[in-house]
């Protein structure tokens, strides 16, 4: 078990290194660069530009720049934002809470809905409800997140004026209710894709389980239908879903990026897009590494949870 975890952590570190290299290279290959904003400043001379570039270390060859950045990262110095000179970790930290709240609430919503829809589709296979869920999932997966968000805003904020169109809270109103009203729309929008995927996987997993011999044994014991469903079918069908949840994490993160932008939610996703616009390299790289760690850790936790949940699996 310990060996497995150490092995996985080692693998993850290698992967992180690769992600950082590719990210760094792509970022610097993109046209523009942090100096572009200074170029527009009236009266900026060529010499001044070069001086700034030298100060920021941007005049060095790319591998050297990467090495510099990596060396600092390894000792815990994630750099400072070009925009406001705040430490990158502090900037990320100040946006982390909003993103985690959004992701957690939408994941919870998606899992409850997705499990329900999936189980229903499996036990009422080929019923009207099953077909409706199938079509619904296809539509949900086909709708672009940003478009769905805009439609939501148009309907619920503009036309009906039930919910705020964006942001995390009304200025001066710190109540939980106000927060919840702001959360509803981004949460639903972000959950949409996850509900669709989760319910399809859940249905397939459940279908596989309900025809197993042990479900028949449970019925032969005279257990109530609900008991058979929960303890002898759902319990087993949820096992592979742990892996699905792990795999869904990056999709959720990229979904959060779009959703936060549409709803001006002050989270990491919006920070990423803003920083990209400013060519704020340290923050962009920091966010990249941070989300990569989040995804890798999430998958490791999913694998470990699987061991806890399935008595047949023992890691050596």
């Amino acid at each position, binding site marked *: 078990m310990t060996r497995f975890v150490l092995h996985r952590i080692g693998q993850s570190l290698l992967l992180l290194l690769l992600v950082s290299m590719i990210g760094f290279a792509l970022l610097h290959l993109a046209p523009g660069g942090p100096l572009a904003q200074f170029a527009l400043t009236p009266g900026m001379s060529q010499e001044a530009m070069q001086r700034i570039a030298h100060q920021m270390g941007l005049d060095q060859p790319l591998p050297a720049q990467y090495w510099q950045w990596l060396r600092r990262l390894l000792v815990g110095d994630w750099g400072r934002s070009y925009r406001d000179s705040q430490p990158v970790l502090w900037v990320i930290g100040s946006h982390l809470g909003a993103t985690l709240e959004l992701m957690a609430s939408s994941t919870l919503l998606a899992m409850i809905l997705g499990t329900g829809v999936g189980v229903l589709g499996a036990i009422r296979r080929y019923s009207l409800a099953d077909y409706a869920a199938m079509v619904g999932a296809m539509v949900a997966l086909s709708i672009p997140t940003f478009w769905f968000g805009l439609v939501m805003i148009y309907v619920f904020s503009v036309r009906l004026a039930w919910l705020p169109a964006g942001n995390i809270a009304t200025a001066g109103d710190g109540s939980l209710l106000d927060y919840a009203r702001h959360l509803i729309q981004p949460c639903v929008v972000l959950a949409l894709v996850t509900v669709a995927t989760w319910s399809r996987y859940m249905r397939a997993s459940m279908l596989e389980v309900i025809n197993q011999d042990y479900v028949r044994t449970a019925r032969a*014991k005279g257990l109530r239908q609900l008991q058979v469903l929960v303890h002898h079918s759902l319990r087993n069908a949820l096992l592979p879903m742990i892996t699905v949840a792990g795999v869904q994490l990056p999709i959720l993160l990229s979904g959060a990026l779009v959703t936060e932008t549409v709803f001006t939610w002050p989270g990491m996703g919006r920070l990423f897009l803003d920083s990209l616009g400013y060519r704020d390299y340290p923050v962009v790289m920091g966010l990249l590494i941070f989300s990569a760690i989040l995804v890798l850790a999430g998958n490791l936790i999913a694998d470990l949870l699987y061991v806890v949940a399935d008595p047949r699996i023992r890691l050596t």
Partner: protein
Amino acid sequence: MPLSETGDLLRVEGLTVRFGAVPAIEDVSFALRPGETLAIVGESSSGKSVTALALMRLLDPRACSVSGRALLRGPDGRETDLLALPERAMADLRGRALGMIFQEPMTSLNPVHTVGRQISESLIRHERLSPRAAAARAVDLLAEVGIPEPARRASAFPHQLSGGMRQRATIAIALACRPRILIADEPTTALDVTIQAQILDLLHRLQQETGMAVVFITHNLGVVAEIADRVVVMYAGQVVEDAPVAALLEHPAMPYTAGLMRSVPRLDAALHTGRRLLAIPGNVPDPRQRPAGCTFHPRCGHARPDPCLRARPALEWAAPDHRVRCARWQEIAA
């Protein structure tokens, strides 16, 4: 005739199961007396398992239609038709009055729950035991079915037990609430021969102790000779012979039964006379296209165009407790 007069515990009448238009079993009837062991014998796809599942009402009602009657005499002498009960009332009987064990011990236990828990579930459900009392009773039951170190095994998961141990555990589950009828669907087929004998002994011992009746489904006539009081032979979804075990083994009236007996491997015969096994030629017909006339006639050495191809023979009384479905049984016996 009411069950109280015939003394039967269970009487199945005209049991028919159709999957769409395809009949899996047709007009199956037999009776089971208290404490008796009834063997249902037949080749694969003869309808044995469907019969058992239909009695337990474990077939998917959306996939098939079940008709006929299955009358069960209750402890109070009242008759209940299992096939007409509402699902809730049937669930009350399953695991309590009727226990069932299945063919595959490898797959019939839930891999994510401990063996003990899977036994205590029915005790909690039917006997309203507390979880703690049920867990203690589960350990007793494991000891009863001959599992060593029962307390430790109760907290084991199915994959940690051998096939034979698992089958003992499924027997413990089926017998947890002391059912009056145990339906065993090929309980030894998936096991090694030595383990088979142990499981048969165990079932026999438990039957002696509890006085339950057993419906034992098998394709193995050797097992039948060992355990059965009465035998129902099934072929292509129908009962073709029904007799006490001695009568059936000594004077099988149906050519199919005789053929089954000739195809049982016998060590002594092979050693002393050099006689080879006589297999019944051909296969059980596909339920979708069973032959006209007697369903067995294409494989039967005694078949004649008249009467065997003309009409499906009826189940006739060959003796007061011996039924046979063969148009020529009297000629063949003579």
